């Protein structure tokens, strides 16, 4: 595991997310909450393989998958409602000089 540069702070509007594919085989979803906090999780919904970074809706610190409305806590990765029963892997995030680094 190492710190890798994922994107710039300004690449993400508050309350949005994106998918970052720069870390090898595993795509990572990066989130910027309305409060300005950054988080990162595995990009794929544990219920039915859909990108969470691309199309999902960020509500506070919760991400909602657009396919079947599974919900996860982006801070802990916890699955918050059915149909998801398995949590998301989370990654450490650091912000430095306007850039987002993810430990992966």
């Amino acid at each position, binding site marked *: 595991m190492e710190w890798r540069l994922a994107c710039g702070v300004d690449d993400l509007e508050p309350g949005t997310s994106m998918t970052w594919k720069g870390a090898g085989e595993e795509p990572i979803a990066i989130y910027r909450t309305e409060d300005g906090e950054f988080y990162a999780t595995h990009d794929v919904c544990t219920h039915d393989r859909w990108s969470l970074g691309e199309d999902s*809706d960020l509500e506070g610190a919760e991400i909602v998958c657009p396919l079947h409305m599974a919900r996860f806590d982006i801070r802990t990765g916890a699955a918050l409602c059915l*149909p998801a029963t398995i949590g998301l892997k989370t990654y450490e995030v650091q912000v430095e000089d306007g850039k987002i680094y993810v430990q992966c």
Partner: protein
Amino acid sequence: MSAMGILIVGASIAGVRTAQSLRKSGFADPVTIVGAEPYLPYDKPPVSKDMILPETDGAPVPLLGAEELDALGVDLRVGVRAVALDPVARVVVTDTGEELGYDILVIATGVSPRTLPGAEGLIGVHTMRTVEDALAVRAALPAARHVVAIGAGFIGAEFASAARSHGADVTVVEAQPVPLAHLLGARVGALLGGLHEANGVTLLTGTQVERFEGTGRVTGVTLADGRTLPADLVVVGVGATPATGWLATSGLPVDDGVVCDERLRVRGFDGVYAAGDVARWPHPMYGVEMRIEHWTNANEHAEIVAAAVTGAPAPRVRPPYVWSDQYGHRIQIVGRPGLGRAVRVRTAADDHQAAAVYADEDGTVVAAVVVDDPRLLMRLRRAVIARTPLDALDAPF
């Protein structure tokens, strides 16, 4: 609680998810699930989608992995049909005459597809609800030449789409002048109905079915206007009715579904709950009683029941949501289109598919229909939840 624990009738999405949700909430008493079909719990949406497509192996999609099912610690009895309930004695009677006691009962028997007179016993005429239906239709599709879908709702449309991908000549027959008009209005219904013709399927609307032709095996479908469509495979997709026949002598309130309160407790019967397609309840977002046959609704109901049983607060309210996969497109609907009308409509163009926003008389966003644009769907879902005024809606059309 005594040792009998919870009995869940229906190894359905709602039934199995209720068991999962109970265990997740720490419920440690015995859980028994009985399911009428002789299969391990499987997911329903693929029955009319993946299970009948040529590129798949047609196997049922398990609702839980073997390990998950094991870890759930439930007494799962499949191939066992509940035939009667005595809520005073707290006993469910099965088709083998067994009497199953319970402390808490969850009714999750779902719905049964409607069919048409003359369909029974006629080879080649099917409904689409179960694994058996999917297997039978899948076996018939490769050799089918003339396929008819009766009903242009989601089941009829998904079946027509699958039949088309098998190379069959497909006709969809719809009684309404415009498909889905009763749910989505004529304008949006026409946009979605247009997918049939765009994919080489004939759509006949405003047309009733008079009878099936053929002895022993279907050979055609005769319409009210006298035309006969040749047919060697027919799927009837004209809606479904709650599977409440087994409750007829129970005294439970049944009125197009089992009548429940907002936490899905069957009204007047302590310790009895209903969940999923079979439950009629006042949706907390709307306050009026409704019955919703959506996959997500079954998941949500499971959590509502588990919270009520374990004394936890009711889970967050979510708007109704449903999707359909047709001709390679995904249609997503959120909210209740029937509460308003389609006030903003986007037709398909080179760079996007159709979408619509529904608002009520006060100009509040109440629903959205979106094709192939999940990001937009999620934005509009947020507006539905927030009851956003149409004027304040940030949408790209």
